[in-house]
């Protein structure tokens, strides 16, 4: 096939469309190769005997073959949910069209690949820890203030008691 350039190229057909077209083309060409002439040629003796029958048998053969093949393709599509997958893949490819660099691929080493999958959780965990640590520190600061105030108060009470004691001696 030729390259692009010149007049604007219409949007490329989706994968589902290409799939259907390619199968249809296959069937067309197969039917063209296995033409009636070829068929009649191979079954010459019978053709001479019954030309109309030969024609009708051939027609049925080709049509039956084509419909079986189309059915099989439909089954494959249904089983694999291919229509949906093709459309979704088309979208994904379209979104990546500006990416020139080759994308990440699984390295085959699970330990390496799982790292990036864990990072978002670790980051969340880290920011959670930072938050609760700050809160705890603030809480402790307030409690420490109360403790110091408490100590002062106790010292004060002790002094008052000493003073009373002296007054009674």
């Amino acid at each position: 096939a030729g390259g692009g350039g010149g007049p604007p190229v219409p949007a490329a057909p989706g994968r589902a469309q290409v799939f259907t077209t390619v199968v249809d083309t296959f069937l067309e060409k197969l039917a063209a190769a296995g033409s009636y002439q070829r068929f009649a040629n191979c079954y010459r003796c019978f053709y001479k005997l019954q030309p109309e029958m030969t024609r009708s048998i051939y027609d049925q053969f080709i049509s039956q073959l084509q419909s079986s093949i189309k059915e099989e393709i439909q089954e494959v599509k249904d089983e694999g949910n291919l229509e949906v997958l093709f459309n979704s893949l088309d979208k994904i490819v379209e979104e990546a069209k500006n990416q020139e660099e080759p994308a990440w691929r699984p390295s085959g080493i699970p330990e390496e690949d799982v790292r990036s999958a864990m990072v978002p959780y670790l980051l969340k965990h880290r920011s959670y820890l930072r938050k609760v640590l700050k809160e705890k520190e603030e809480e402790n600061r307030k409690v420490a203030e109360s403790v110091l105030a408490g100590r002062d108060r106790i010292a004060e009470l002790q002094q008052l008691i000493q003073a009373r004691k002296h007054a009674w001696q």
Partner: protein
Amino acid sequence: MSVDPMAYEAQFFGFTPQTCMLRIYIAFQDYLFEMMLVVESVILKKLDGFPGCKISPFQIRKSTEKFLLFMKEHFDKLFSKMEEVLLQLVLNIPKNVLLPEDKVHEQYPYSKEQFQALQDEIHQLQKQYRAEASAGQALRAELEEQKAVRAELEKILQWFDGLENICREHGTGNFKESFAFLTRNSKKLQDVLKDVEEKSKKIKKHDQLL
């Protein structure tokens, strides 16, 4: 030439493209053979209705084989071309495309060291938090103790104040002074007693020596 296992495509589709193609090939081929057999059996049946004809089943079989061989050749060629197109254009994921489920690898390409550093930071934060938590517990424990101590001290102070109120109520404003006088004197008495004891001890010793 290495064969592309198309593992990423398999991840997306749930099957390997090559497997899919193989399945289709075998199915198509089966249909072709099946149809040919049907054709042959139909022709043979029709021939039964012509008892006079000279065509043998053997000839029919030969015809069938000829046609089938021809079809198979074209079938294989055409299928091969179809397979190529499907594997390249339909059942493939271009090299620059990342599946959405793998987005994290693009967003967080952490190296081993970076990952380790992140884990270390988390451990550190956990340690710090535990330290703060136990410090908090200790502080609150002291606060409880202080409450008890303060209560005791306040009780004592109250008792003193109570004493003073009693004095005031009974008009003996000098009770405090006389009580103080009493404690001083009893202390003096104790001192004098001690003195006398020591002195008598000395005298006894003196007597013994004499």
